[in-house]
């Protein structure tokens, strides 16, 4: 069955620390991958997406993600987090149907 796994459920970092959130997917064939962010009390917003080409994707607010096909991974990174990055982050995937599969989310807390 198709699935998306996020291994880190809760992450706590200090400001200026580097961030890497893991995302693995199990899909055969072509896949499009997304990272969404949900700030406290708000709706999900797109951070970045990958569909083809350069496996290193840059998104908004200094986030980037790397698609590694051999590892079925699409990890989210940010070199230096800020207090305002405190949020829940969701990885999602679609493989050509109407269905999008979401991971269970990672809650990030950044300490000022």
């Amino acid at each position, binding site marked *: 069955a198709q699935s998306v796994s996020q291994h880190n*459920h809760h992450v706590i970092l200090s400001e200026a620390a580097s961030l890497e959130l893991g995302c693995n997917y199990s899909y055969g064939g*072509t*896949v*499009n991958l*997304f990272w*969404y962010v949900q700030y406290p009390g*708000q*709706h*999900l*917003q*797109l951070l970045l*997406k990958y*569909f*083809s080409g350069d496996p290193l994707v840059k998104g908004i607010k200094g986030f980037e993600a790397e698609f590694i096909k051999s590892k079925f991974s699409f990890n989210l990174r940010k070199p230096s987090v800020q207090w305002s990055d405190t949020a829940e982050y*969701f990885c*999602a995937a*679609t*493989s*050509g*149907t*109407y*269905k*999008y599969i*979401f*991971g*269970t*989310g990672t809650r990030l807390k950044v300490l000022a």
Partner: protein
Amino acid sequence: NAGVTQTPKFRVLKTGQSMTLLCAQDMNHEYMYWYRQDPGMGLRLIHYSVGEGTTAKGEVPDGYNVSRLKKQNFLLGLESAAPSQTSVYFCASSYSFGTSGSGNEQFFGPGTRLTVL
């Protein structure tokens, strides 16, 4: 552009009551989706629509019905609410689907927090 809007924002129901959640989008998107978000479970697809007048079941459709009479609106109904339907409900829309990469990202509404007592 308002994007995707949802009404109401909060609702408390008693077991057995019914209600309808309204989702509206002003982006002329063909595809619309209803998800529920529960702690530790991420987002799960309830129903979706690939165009006006069409609906289809998602991952967790039991206890819900939907209608898409107008392209811009997607309604989610609970005929007889149960405590297990306590959740946050998100509506989303997209211009396209699939793996072309063009316009297939979803835009989400602000959510409806529903409590069923």
